[in-house]
């Protein structure tokens, strides 16, 4: 039907508390864009959200193939949201391959919106369909909506000069317009985004706006949809300014906030790698904050340059993912030895080796804690969600500077690319960041400057300002004498220094809060999580608690050192469940540190853990 008519059909309006939608299409179909703009529309509608972008490693696998399918999942609700959602309520499939790859995620009787135009013989064949699933009844358990998306876009743009390629490329906005209509999201937000995107290209701007509105009008006018959904705003959070943020953006902002607070410019050494590169991109544009980004020749150079900058007094940071992390380890050992502050961000991805570059995993924990030669302990912190990456990063800088040491931040692909609302902190309220800076030789004793003397509380050595007369010193990877820092091959000194370097890590726990427990501090099951599994674990535990079960949750922000009251907590439960996206790495760490009974739950699928599977695990551990 034409879009001019406006005799809206009679339809039902249903109010939902929580909805999970997923856009799926070719890598070139703009699904990430559609998904992130619907996210923005949802947060501005007052919903809490969590997202899960799921895209292939290939930039543009051949169109229509299974390998090229890119997806974006969005969970929005009128309650707090901690995960991108287990089962999808509405799936948009732009072609047969997208359908084949994503149909499993759609719940029974979920909404399935497909672009019928793409279900050609060729398209079906590429997706591996022998029969057309739109016709063979195989989709009977879903609510199927067949939309001639490509044709409708052509119609909407009939009187423009646009070539067929450009018309085809705009169909993500048609799907987005339709979804915004279906879930009552305002188009204004998206329109502003389109305006920003196509600034200076009026013909594309107009075309994409027309298609977006066409999608909305199609929902409104066609007979296809007998129902429309409302998801009311979530209860207002604490007062303040909010924005939507991804984990990689939050890391970049956390670094800049820490840099401003510490009064030290950022030196950021990095070598591009998925899914960490966006942090480099974000910081490269922040030179007005004094950020110096250095795209090095490899990861080793990136960390070494950062260490050189740390010696020179900068806030030094390096950023990578698993394979690059492996390359950096020798230099991190040098940072341990020279006791220089350095922040190392590892955005974990699927492995081993090149593994699954665009998928998430948390299997670098042991590499972070123990991945260097000899006794070379390093502090490790992990954000639990995209917005929390701001705080975790800020804390990493605090610890690195206060204690004069390298600190590893373990983010992951889900946090890096996932997004959620974030209450923006007031710069005036940021926690202090201190460093043992020394910028004068006045008042030094007769022995002169002792680069390896230390503060009794923080165990940090002084951070001498290079260029200061009288503070010249030599550092390096050879073993040091405590105090003077001179090279020492003395066996007692070596033993003492090895023990001291471990004590420096253990000592951090004295500056950190104890365990933050959701639920009672004793009971039947304690769920212990770290990193991005936070949301799924918390949600599963809350459901069990609502069902009256004696289940609690503790999420570990610092993995090295562990909170000082953790051992006691572990012993206060009948059993402990440690769910992880690896083969039980935290579990091994805990077992080595404490005497407790517990279970490791592991799934290494390149996907966030699902709440349902965790509920089942908890259930199985409860006394019957």
């Amino acid at each position, binding site marked *: 039907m034409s879009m001019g008519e406006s005799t809206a059909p009679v339809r039902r309006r249903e109010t939902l508390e929580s909805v999970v939608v997923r856009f799926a299409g070719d890598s070139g179909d703009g699904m990430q864009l559609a998904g992130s703009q619907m996210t923005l529309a949802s947060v501005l509608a007052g919903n809490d959200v969590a997202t899960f972008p799921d895209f292939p490693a290939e930039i543009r696998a051949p169109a229509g193939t299974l390998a090229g399918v890119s997806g974006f999942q969005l969970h929005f609700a009128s309650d707090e949201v901690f995960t991108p959602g287990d089962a999808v309520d509405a799936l948009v499939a732009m072609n047969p391959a997208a359908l084949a790859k994503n149909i499993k995620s759609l719940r029974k009787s979920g909404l399935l919106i497909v672009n019928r135009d793409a279900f050609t013989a060729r398209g079906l064949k590429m997706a591996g369909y022998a029969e057309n699933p739109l016709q063979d009844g195989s989709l009977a358990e879903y609510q199927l909506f067949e939309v001639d998306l490509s044709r409708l876009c052509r119609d909407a743009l009939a009187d423009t000069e646009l070539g067929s390629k450009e018309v085809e490329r705009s169909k993500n906005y048609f799907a987005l317009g339709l979804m915004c209509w279906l879930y009552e999201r305002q188009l204004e937000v998206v329109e502003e985004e389109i305006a920003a995107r196509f600034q200076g290209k009026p013909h594309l701007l107009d075309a994409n706006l027309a298609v977006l509105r066409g999608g909305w009008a199609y929902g409104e006018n066609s007979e296809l949809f007998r129902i429309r959904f409302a998801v009311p705003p979530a209860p207002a959070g604490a007062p303040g300014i909010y924005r939507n943020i991804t984990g990689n953006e939050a890391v970049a902002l956390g670094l800049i*906030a820490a840099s401003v607070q510490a009064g030290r410019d950022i*030196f950021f050494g990095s070598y591009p790698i998925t899914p960490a590169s966006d942090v480099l991109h974000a910081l490269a544009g922040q030179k007005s904050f004094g950020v110096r980004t250095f795209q090095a020749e490899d990861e080793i150079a990136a960390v070494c340059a950062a260490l050189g900058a740390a010696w020179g007094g900068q806030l030094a940071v390096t950023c990578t993912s698993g394979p690059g992390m492996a390359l950096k380890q020798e230099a991190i050992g*040098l940072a341990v030895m020279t006791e220089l502050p350095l922040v190392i961000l590892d955005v974990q991805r699927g492995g081993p080796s090149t593994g699954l570059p665009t998928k998430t995993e948390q299997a670098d924990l042991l590499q972070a804690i123990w991945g260097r030669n000899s006794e070379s302990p390093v502090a490790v912190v992990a954000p639990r969600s995209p917005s929390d990456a701001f705080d975790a990063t800020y804390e990493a800088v605090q610890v690195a500077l206060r204690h004069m040491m390298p600190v590893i931040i373990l983010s992951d692909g889900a946090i890096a690319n996932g997004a959620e609302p974030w209450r923006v902190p007031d710069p005036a309220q940021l926690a202090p960041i201190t460093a043992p800076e020394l910028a004068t030789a006045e008042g030094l004793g007769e022995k002169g400057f002792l680069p390896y003397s230390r503060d009794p509380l923080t165990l940090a050595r002084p951070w001498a300002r290079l260029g200061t007369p009288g503070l010249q010193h030599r550092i390096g990877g050879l073993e040091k004498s405590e105090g003077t820092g001179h090279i020492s091959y003395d066996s007692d000194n070596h033993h003492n220094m090895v023990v001291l370097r471990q004590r420096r890590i253990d000592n951090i726990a004295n500056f950190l809060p104890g365990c933050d427990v959701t639920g009672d501090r004793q009971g039947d099951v304690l769920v212990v999580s770290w990193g991005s599994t936070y949301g799924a674990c918390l949600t599963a535990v809350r459901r069990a608690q609502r069902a009256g079960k004696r289940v609690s949750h503790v999420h570990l922000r610092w993995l090295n050192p562990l909170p000082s009251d953790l051992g006691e907590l572990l012993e206060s439960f009948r059993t402990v469940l440690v769910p992880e996206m690896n083969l039980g790495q935290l579990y091994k760490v805990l077992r080595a540190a404490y005497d407790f009974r517990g279970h490791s739950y592991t799934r290494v699928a390149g996907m966030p853990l699902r709440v349902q599977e965790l509920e089942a695990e908890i259930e199985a551990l409860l006394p019957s």
Partner: protein
Amino acid sequence: MDQATPRTFKAKDFASDQDVRWCPGCGDYAILSAVHKALAIQGIAPESIAFVSGIGCSSRFPYYMSTYGFHTIHGRAPAVATGLKIGRPDLQVWLVTGDGDALSIGGNHLIHVLRRNVDIKILLFNNRIYGLTKGQYSPTSEFGKKTKSTPLGSVDHPFSPLVVGLGAEATFLARAIDVDAPVLGEVLAATAAHQGSAYVEILQNCNIFNDGAWDTLSAKESRADALLHLRHGQPMVFGRARDKGIVLRGLRPEVVTLGEGGLSEADCWVHDAHDPDPTRAFILARMWAPALPVPVGVLRAVQRPCYDAAVNAQVATARATPGDLHKLLVGRKNWTVS
């Protein structure tokens, strides 16, 4: 520091109180003392200088300097020095490395620091051997060399540090030999003065694992005939009696005897260290004994913007309007809950 009263320095002002631990007779001693002298002449205070090194006998160098010093890890000193220089352009940064450190494990970093033209002074001690690990062949060891790891002779083709440097677009290339203090002093002075990566190959004798590697070049009797001391703007004349010269025939250098066949100094190739075209520098870098004298002195010294200065210029321009943290944090799209 009081700018009004310039300080003067003696060589010993640049020496640290640490015992030097190289083998007696090692060529590194002569280089160390030449550097102390050159820095005293230069007149920049020890606290304004940083020495960075990798790993190897040569890389112990920073411990023997009264400047700031960082003995890093094997091969990575160029990267450490780059980070330091970007953050602290006010410091004069020197880098000391060996033929293994710079050209094997650190080859990648070396070419990139030269390509970027980071304002760092790089001294590569070439003893054609791995000294610290007790005598394995290195990337500059001659083909067929018998060492502990090549009992039947090495089948690795060596390369020349300076040719590699030129391939990496180095703006300053020089060579000196440990025992020839005047040339070494002259080269170090030019190195100190160059803006950008100044890359120096210092032929150094390891008397323990590769003794005599440079004998034909360094022996007092043969030195004048084996080495060609380059001076910018001067014809290339050499030999004990200064009776030999280099004539460039097309792209081929040739040794001629002055006075024979009507040839005089005026026919010799005149050294132009500032030639922006690297072709002639490449010819010089490849000249090698015994067919040709080995050039020492400054082969090439051209100007190109430095990476560190360019990075800091971008930051300075952007900082003219300093970043506003609140504005950055709240972003383009946000909403308020009251």
